[in-house]
């Protein structure tokens, strides 16, 4: 299986059967200190907000907690309602 994130399928086809692929493009290093997040060194939990894939990250090395969002398209203000 390819380990190139760009090869991930888009849209609705990427659920359960593609779980392993999802893990491939999860952040692997802490945005704050560069420490490893993969394996047992930290934690990355992926969740979805509309079309956005959000990675909730915790770094064991520096205790940084935050979210990383994979962006397909930058959207500015949207009209309320």
């Amino acid at each position: 299986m390819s380990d190139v994130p760009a090869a991930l399928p888009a849209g609705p086809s990427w659920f359960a059967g593609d779980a392993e692929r999802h893990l491939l493009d999860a952040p692997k290093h802490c945005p704050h200190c560069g420490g490893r997040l993969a394996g047992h060194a930290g934690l990355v939990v992926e969740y979805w907000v509309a079309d956005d894939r959000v990675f909730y990250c915790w770094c064991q090395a520096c205790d940084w907690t935050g979210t990383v969002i994979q962006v397909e398209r930058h959207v500015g203000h949207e009209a309320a309602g």
Partner: protein
Amino acid sequence: MLTAEQNAELTRVGPGTPMGELLRRYWYPVAFTRQLDQFPVRRVRLLGEDWALYRTSDGGYGVVEEHCPHRRASLAYGVVEADGIRCGYHGWLFGRDGTCLDQPAEMDKTSFKDRVRARAGRAEELGGMVWVYVGPEPAPLPPRYDVYVMDGVRDFGHALLPCNWLQIMENAVDPHHVEWLHGRYFEFLGNRLGFEAPKSFQRRHIKVAFDEFEHGIIKRRLLEGHTEADDDWAIGHPLVFPYCMRVGGAGIDQMQIRVPVDDTTTWFVLYTVHAPEGARFEPQEAIPDYELPWRDEQGNHIVDYVEGQDIMAWVTQGPITDRTVEHLGKSDVGIAMLRKQFKQQLAAVAAGRDPIAVVRDPAANQRIDLPCEKNKFGAGADFALQWMNLGFTRYSPQLKDLLRLHTDAAEARAAAVGADV
């Protein structure tokens, strides 16, 4: 979504596992005091290991590994003596610290018994339950959380569930499930089966929030029609790390206890204290404990009461939830935070530090008050009656007395208001 390795790290509780090492830093209730009063020794299972729990004639408690170091017979079938437990097979006697005190069939002058020791933990009574600690010394104190030490009428419902404790704990940081599992689904059942489901559980969640604190995570919800001044948001209630949830309202205070028995078994205890304002109650001679039915004769889940619905949601995830194929949304951020909290505390133990919610200061342990709503879901005093009639308390042998306690208290409060006017 987690990797299979991460899921295993967070869910395996046996000896030698990272989570097992973390969880062994805490005290756990493993029996009701009543059970040891009726018969002074019983087998208990905790964190994947079996133990013999006993009560000596002076009222003290002890806990030793179940299998005798001599020939491995069960000490749960031993003879309880003043200074420990004697194996029923050949009479070897072990003190509360596991020291071998007697080997009656051996030579008097042998040093053999000095070289044999049973693994022993610590055991104490608190609030009508017997608690054990099986981790490294020095042992912390059994935490005297408010519910365990407050005055009131106690009521213990419980069930042994075939699933890992973590999926139950993740439910404790999942406020939205109330609106659906205990709201919409309950209403659906009521419409089909001919009963009225509680309206207060059906309110829509406008937003939820989670705050880490020294004993776990405080969960808040803003419900439709409410403001941030309402109890559900302003106070909330906590997940108490690593295996409890404090909940309550309308004169009912409860600790939901989820003891990790082993990787795929959890002892679920609803430790409940009824103390509505204005109530008058006598000291209890005995605290009722009763097993909750959660499957019917056909093997289907019993889902027409609140906790039965929760149990359905926990158990049907499987013995250990497969988190490699889950799909979390933003409403699940509390679950992500809980996993992070477990990871942080795993790291603390690996570094030789105490994890959170380990209590060592006796002065701070007189009574540990936890934040918890009083006016739950904005339902006022009605919440207590709804919770009892449509929750696990319907199985309580003292249900009628508890209902009367709350209605009498409501009348006393109303009379007091009238007198003031």
